């Protein structure tokens, strides 16, 4: 029946479109996160005292850091479209992104109080040799930039626990990755008995007004709120069909026990690709994916790829790769990269789930990822949940070199992850669904 096929095809196309939009949104989160980390590095360098800086530098620094955080929280909201309800029950208080917004608002107040106050709290006494501008910078950095989510902290951090701006943006970027990785499994249900309140009396009710009002009723009224909520709801309504996108994925057997379902969003492969086709790695045209696969296969180039094992998912274009491998306890390992001729837009972001703790103080997976990647000039942040690494702005050959390294680490993680390559690997998506 052609109408039936058309219906499915249309659903798949819509799903692919949604996936592309969400990946693009995730990249915006990463871009803002990178911007924030650059500010942290820049401010630390300036604090060294070798610069001529004035108060306006500190004010501009704070403004840019808050702007990056604000963008991240907003993009996270659009990405998740989470009204805070799951399976008919309220998910731990108000909607997640709103809690991040509230926390951000409080941090903003603290920062503004610091910058406009007569004395910078926690700073050296005004009688010290340090100039006031440097004292202010030090106080601002102390308030906004420490990452306090140490390895000993709880694995899942709530917005309220974020003590600094850095904590907040770190958690937001982690949650954004979670959201994207778990796209196919996310469900949202608005309970039928929910009391909704219109925040805009007399306004025409759009088709999605019920969702709109739910979101608006828990959202502070401010300029732009309706535009924002509208976008969130659109994303949310589309969410249910997201898993359909992967039905047309091709498969690349990368290494023994590790295969990738791959969606090509533009010139990711040589030649036309049929849905469900099993492709040789030689067909991969995507620059970052090709380099990544070279790293994955580097350990045992002669071994036969494929076989029973874990399925990872990747979305590629000629210059981009977004990939997820499910790790231990359902936490995903995540990779997002752009490698092209335009050096300025190149970036590489990877996150490895820490996994269960070992006998020592650190989880073996986290130790492996941290040790290997710290030798590759990648900025790294470690928390109890994950090790995340980041680099941007390098020329393509340098990015490819790092992609190969990341590929080797991914392979090691997928094979068990511990320093000695423990046989018990993380629970992942079994290949049986494709066989």
């Amino acid at each position, binding site marked *: 029946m052609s109408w039936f096929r058309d219906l499915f095809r249309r659903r798949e196309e819509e799903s692919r479109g949604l996936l592309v939009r969400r990946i693009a949104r995730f990249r915006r989160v990463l871009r803002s996160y990178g911007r924030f980390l650059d500010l942290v590095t820049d401010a630390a360098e*300036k604090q060294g005292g070798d*610069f*001529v*800086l*004035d*108060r*306006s*530098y500190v004010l501009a620094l704070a403004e840019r850091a808050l702007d990056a955080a604000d963008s991240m929280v907003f993009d996270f909201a659009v990405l998740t479209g989470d009204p805070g309800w799951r399976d008919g029950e309220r998910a731990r208080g108000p909607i997640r992104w709103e809690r991040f917004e509230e926390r951000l608002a409080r941090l903003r107040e603290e920062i503004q109080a610091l910058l406009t106050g007569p004395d910078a709290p926690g700073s050296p006494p005004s009688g010290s040799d340090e100039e006031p*501008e440097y004292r202010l910078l030090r106080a601002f950095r102390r308030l906004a930039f420490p990452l306090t989510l140490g390895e000993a902290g709880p694995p899942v951090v709530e917005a309220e626990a974020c003590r600094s701006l850095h904590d907040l943006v770190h958690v937001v970027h982690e949650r954004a990755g979670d959201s994207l990785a778990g796209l196919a499994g996310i469900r949202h249900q608005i309970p039928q008995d929910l009391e909704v309140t219109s925040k805009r009396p007399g306004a025409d009710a759009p088709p999605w007004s019920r969702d709109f009002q739910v979101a608006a009723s828990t959202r502070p009224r401010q300029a732009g709120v309706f535009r924002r909520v509208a976008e969130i709801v659109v994303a949310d309504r589309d969410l249910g069909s997201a898993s359909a996108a992967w039905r047309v994925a091709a498969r690349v057997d990368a290494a023994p026990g590790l295969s990738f379902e791959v969606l090509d969003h533009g010139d990711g492969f040589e030649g036309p690709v049929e849905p469900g086709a099993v492709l040789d790695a030689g067909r991969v045209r995507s620059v970052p994916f090709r380099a990544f696969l070279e790293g994955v296969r580097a350990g045992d180039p002669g071994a036969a790829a494929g076989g029973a094992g874990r399925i990872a998912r990747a979305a590629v274009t000629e210059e981009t790769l977004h990939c997820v491998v499910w790790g231990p306890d359902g936490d995903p390992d995540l990779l997002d990269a752009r490698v092209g001729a335009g050096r300025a837009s190149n970036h590489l972001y990877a996150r490895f789930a820490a996994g269960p703790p070992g006998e020592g103080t650190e989880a073996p997976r986290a130790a492996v990822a941290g040790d290997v990647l710290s030798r590759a000039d990648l900025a790294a942040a470690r928390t109890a949940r994950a090790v995340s690494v980041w680099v941007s702005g390098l020329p393509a050959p340098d990015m490819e070199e790092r992609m190969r390294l990341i590929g080797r680490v991914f392979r090691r993680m997928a094979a068990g992850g511990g320093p000695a390559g423990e046989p018990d690997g993380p629970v992942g998506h079994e290949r049986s669904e494709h066989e």
Partner: protein
Amino acid sequence: MNRPLSVLILDDEPIVGKRLKPAVEKVGFEVETFEDPAQALRRLGERDFDIVVTDVRMEEVSGIQVLEHVLSRSRRTKVIIITGYATVEVAREALVKGAFEFLAKPFKPSDLRAVMDRAARALGHPGIPKTPEE
């Protein structure tokens, strides 16, 4: 023997003059610093300087106005614009109106010395000798 070059530094943030004065004097230039644009303009009316370093964004007078004022009196003076709010538009306007160079804050004193070295050479001065750390 060359006479020492004269430099006027104008920035309403005291820390800028405080930091730059010793760094520039160290290379043998004569330096006067000002935080008040009106006072700086009065001084510029009294004598010509070889190099003027001015901030862009100040309360009463903008650095661009200072630039125009200086060049209307002395075309040979090299004006270096510094700002914490660097935008392409401001940089373009400054350069179109005759600024010698545009420097975004924060910068290292050595960055300014490098620009001053070029300005000095453009004025026929032998320039600034390199320090060991440069």
